[in-house]
C-alpha cells in the first residue's frame, strides 16, 4: 500500500526536478521508486521508440513515417544536411544529439490495432528502454498508445491522428500532438467552401462509423451549418465497406448538392472513386454544380484515388509544395535521401521528433515533466507550418491549416494536390476547454 502511494507521489514535478536518480535494472523499474524517471538514459545514447503501422492498410504511411524519423535522427545527431533544423526557430539543438547523448531508435509495428500498438510500445519501453514513443496513423491507436505512455511514464508524441479526442476528451499530460484535428479542418474549410460553393447548399454526409468519423462529421456540420448550409442526411457507413454504391445511390435523388465524405484511407479512396463513378462530380442539382468534399486529405491516399480527386476540396496538415524555407529544406533533404517527396504523415512525425529533442535539450533532461514543461506554451517557427504554438492547456499545436484541392493537371504522380488557401491560425483556434477532457499530472514513471 504505502509503496504504491510513494510511487505515485514521486510523479510530482518538484521531486522530479531533484532527479539525480538511481541506476536500476529495467527489471525493477516499474515497481521501484526513486527520484529518477523511467528509462533515464545512463550511457552515451538515448533511445526513441518509433511505433508505426508496418502491416495493414496504413503500411505505406507507416513506412513514410519511419523514413521521416530516420531522417530526423540523422539530423539531430548531426548527420546529413540538417533539414529543418536549419530553419527551426529554436537553435538549442547543436547537431550532436540531445543533452550530449546520441539518439538511437527502435521500431515497432502497430498493425493499426490498439492492442498491437500498445504491445509494441510496451516492448520498446520495457525491453528497449525507450524514453519516448511516437508515431501512428489512426486516432484510435494514438489515443490507446497515449493512455499507455501516460500510465507507463514516458512522453508520447502523436503521429498522424486527426480526431478531436486525442487532445480533447482523451488528452493526457504525457501526450503531445502536432497534427491538426477535425475542429480545425471544419474551421479552415468552411470559408473556402463558402467562396466556391456559396452559402445556400444542401450537404449529404457519408461518415465512417467510428469515433473519428463522427468527430469529423460533427465539425463539418457545425461550420457549414453556420454558413447557412443545410444537412440533408448524415449516413454512417461500416469501416472497410469496400463498395459504397448502396450508400451513394440514395444521394443521387436526395436533393443534396454537396457530398461530404468523412472517410479516411481506403474508405476514402473507394467512396470517392465510386462517387465520381456515379457521376456525382458532373451532376447538376438545384441549378448548381454538384460538389464533393473530402475534409481530410492525405496525399498518399489521394494517389490511390487517381484522377477522381481533381477539383475536390479538402484540408491537410502540410503539403510538400509549400514554399516556405522550412518546407523547402525538408522536401530537399527527404527527396535527396529517398527520391520522392514526403507525405504529411512524414512531415508531422519529423516535426514531432525534432520538437521533442529540442524540448529535451532546452529542459536539460529527458524527464517527462521537465520535457513537458519545455513544450507547453512553446512558440516556434520554421517547421513548415508558419508560427506555431504548443498550447499548454491541451498539448495541441496551433498553426495555419492548409485547404487543398485535387490538381487538374498534375506534373507527376506526387503532384496531386494544390494548396488553395492557407487558413491563418487565428481562424482555427478554439478555447481549450471546448472539447472537454483533463490533462492530469505528468507521470515520470519511476
Amino acid at each position, binding site marked *: 500500500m504505502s509503496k504504491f502511494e510513494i510511487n505515485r507521489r514521486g510523479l510530482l514535478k518538484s521531486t522530479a526536478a531533484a532527479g539525480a536518480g538511481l541506476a536500476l535494472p529495467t527489471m525493477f523499474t516499474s515497481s521501484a521508486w526513486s527520484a529518477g524517471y523511467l528509462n533515464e538514459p545512463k550511457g552515451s545514447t538515448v533511445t526513441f521508440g518509433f511505433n508505426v503501422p508496418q502491416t495493414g492498410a496504413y503500411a505505406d504511411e507507416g513506412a513514410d513515417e519511419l523514413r521521416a524519423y530516420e531522417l530526423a535522427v540523422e539530423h539531430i545527431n548531426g548527420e546529413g544536411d540538417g533539414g529543418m533544423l536549419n530553419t527551426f526557430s529554436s537553435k538549442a539543438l547543436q547537431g550532436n544529439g540531445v543533452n550530449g547523448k546520441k539518439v538511437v531508435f527502435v521500431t515497432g509495428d502497430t498493425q493499426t490495432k490498439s492492442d498491437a500498438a500498445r504491445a509494441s510500445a510496451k516492448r520498446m519501453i520495457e525491453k528497449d528502454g525507450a524514453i519516448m514513443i511516437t508515431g501512428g496513423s489512426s486516432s484510435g491507436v494514438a489515443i490507446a498508445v497515449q493512455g499507455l505512455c501516460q500510465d507507463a511514464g514516458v512522453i508520447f508524441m502523436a503521429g498522424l491522428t486527426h480526431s478531436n479526442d486525442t487532445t480533447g476528451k482523451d488528452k493526457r499530460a504525457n501526450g503531445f500532438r502536432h497534427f491538426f484535428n477535425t475542429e480545425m479542418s471544419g474551421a479552415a474549410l468552411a470559408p473556402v467552401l463558402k467562396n466556391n460553393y456559396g452559402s445556400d447548399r444542401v450537404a449529404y454526409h457519408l461518415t465512417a462509423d467510428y469515433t473519428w468519423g463522427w468527430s469529423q462529421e460533427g465539425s463539418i456540420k457545425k461550420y457549414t451549418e453556420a454558413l447557412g448550409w443545410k444537412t440533408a442526411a448524415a449516413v454512417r457507413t461500416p469501416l472497410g465497406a469496400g463498395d459504397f454504391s448502396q450508400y451513394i445511390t440514395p444521394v443521387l435523388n436526395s436533393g443534396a448538392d454537396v457530398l461530404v465524405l468523412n472517410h479516411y484511407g481506403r474508405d476514402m479512396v473507394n467512396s470517392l472513386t465510386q462517387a465520381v463513378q456515379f457521376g456525382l462530380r458532373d451532376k447538376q442539382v438545384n441549378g448548381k454544380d454538384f460538389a464533393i468534399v473530402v475534409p481530410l486529405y492525405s496525399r498518399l491516399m489521394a494517389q490511390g484515388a487517381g484522377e477522381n480527386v481533381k477539383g475536390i476540396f479538402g484540408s491537410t496538415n502540410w503539403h510538400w509544395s509549400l514554399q516556405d524555407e522550412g518546407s523547402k529544406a525538408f522536401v530537399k533533404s527527404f527527396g535527396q535521401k529517398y527520391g520522392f517527396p514526403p507525405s504529411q504523415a512524414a512531415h508531422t512525425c519529423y516535426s514531432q521528433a525534432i520538437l521533442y529533442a529540442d524540448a529535451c535539450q532546452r529542459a536539460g533532461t529527458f524527464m517527462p515533466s521537465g520535457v513537458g514543461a519545455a513544450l507547453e506554451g512553446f512558440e516556434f517557427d520554421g517547421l513548415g507550418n508558419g508560427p506555431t504554438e504548443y498550447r499548454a492547456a491541451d498539448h495541441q499545436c496551433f498553426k495555419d491549416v492548409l485547404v487543398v484541392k485535387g490538381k487538374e493537371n498534375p506534373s507527376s504522380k506526387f503532384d496531386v494536390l494544390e494548396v488553395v488557401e492557407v487558413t491563418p491560425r487565428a481562424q482555427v483556434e478554439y478555447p481549450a476547454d471546448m472539447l472537454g477532457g*483533463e490533462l492530469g499530472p505528468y507521470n515520470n514513471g519511476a
Partner: protein
Amino acid sequence: MKMFSMDKKDILLFLCFSVAVLTGPIILEPFGAGYPDLLQKFAIFGIFALGFNILFGLTGYLSFGHAAFLGMGSYTAVWTFKLLSMNPIPAIVFATVMGGLFAALIGFISLRRSGIYFSILTLAFAQMSYNLAYSVLTPITNGETGLQLNQADPRVLDVMFGRDYGAVLPSSDFFGLDMTGYPGFYFCGIVLIICFFIAMRIFRSPFGMMLRAIKSNQNRMNYTGFNTRPYTLAAFVISGMYAGLAGGLMAVTDPLAGAERMQWTASGEVVLMTILGGAGTLLGPVIGAGAIKYFENIFSAFNEGILMGIYDFLPETLQHIMVSVSGLFVGEGWHLTLGALFMLIVIFLPGGLMEGFNRIKTLVTNRTGGGSDGAATPAAAE
C-alpha cells in the same frame, strides 16, 4: 485424496510446466522475450489457447468466433474496474462468468449445427459482436478508441474501503501490488498454471474422454446412450470461460478494451495457435500461443539497423545483400515469415510443434536404445 489422484507422469508434467512458467523471465531473457509485457501476453494467450483446445482439440468443433468471448471478458473487466474496484479478482471473476454466459448463448444456437456450418455460425456471431461494438454500441464499448479508465469513475468498492487514487489514473493492483510489469506477469502466470491444471484434469477425466469420443464418432455416442449436446455445450462454455478469463487478464495488465479483439482475425489467431502447437495435446496450444506472440513482437521489431548489427561480421557487400534478403522476412515482412511458417508446419508436422518435439524425443530415445519401450506407450495415456 482420490480428488487429486494423478499419474506420476502428469505430476511431473505439471511441475515442469509450473517451473517453466515461473522462471519464464529468466529462461526467455536470452531470446529477447524476457520483458513483462510479452511474458504477460504469453500467459494470457496461453490461457486463451488452452481453453480453445478444450473445445477444438477434444470435440473437434472448430469455432471461428472465440475472440468474441475474449472481447466480452475485456469489456466486463474494464467495466468492473470502472464501477467496482481496481482489484483484479472481481474483474477476472466477472470476466470469466460473462465469457461463459455469452458462450452459453452463442453455443446453444451454434451447436445445433456441426462441421463448417457450426464454424460459420460462430464466425457470424463474433463478427456481429465486433461490428456492433465498433459502431453502434460505442456508448458501452467506446468503439474504435476502446474502453478506458477515467479518474471520475465511481469504483464503488474502492471508495467503500477508502482507496483513493488521487489525481492520477488508477491502475489495477492486487492489494497494493501494481498489476503492470513483473507482478502482472506473475499474476497471469499463476492463473495460467491453475488453468493448465484444470485443463489437465479435464483431459484425464471421463468428461474429457467423452469429448474425444464425440470427435471420434458422434453417432456411436448417441447409440451408446450419451446426449452429446450438453457435452459439446459444456465444452463450449468452458472454453468461453477460458477466453473470458484471458480477456479479463488482458484488461488487468493493461486496462483498455478495444473492439478489434473480437474481429475474425483474432478468432483465427487462436485457431492458428492451437493447430501450430498441436491440437488435442495439453502443452501444444500454450507453445503455439507463445510462438505466434513471439513472432508478432520480436520479429516485427527488427529493422535495418538491427540487421546490419547482426551481419556485422560479414564483408560489406555481403552484409548489404544479407540485410536486404532477411529484411523481407522481418520488420514489416514478419507476416510473410508467419505465413511461411504455417505452411511449413502443416506440411511437415501435421501434429503441430508437439509432433516435432515427440519426433525428436523418439529419435533420441531410439539412439540411446530405449526406443522400443517408449514406442509401445499406449496413446490411451494421452
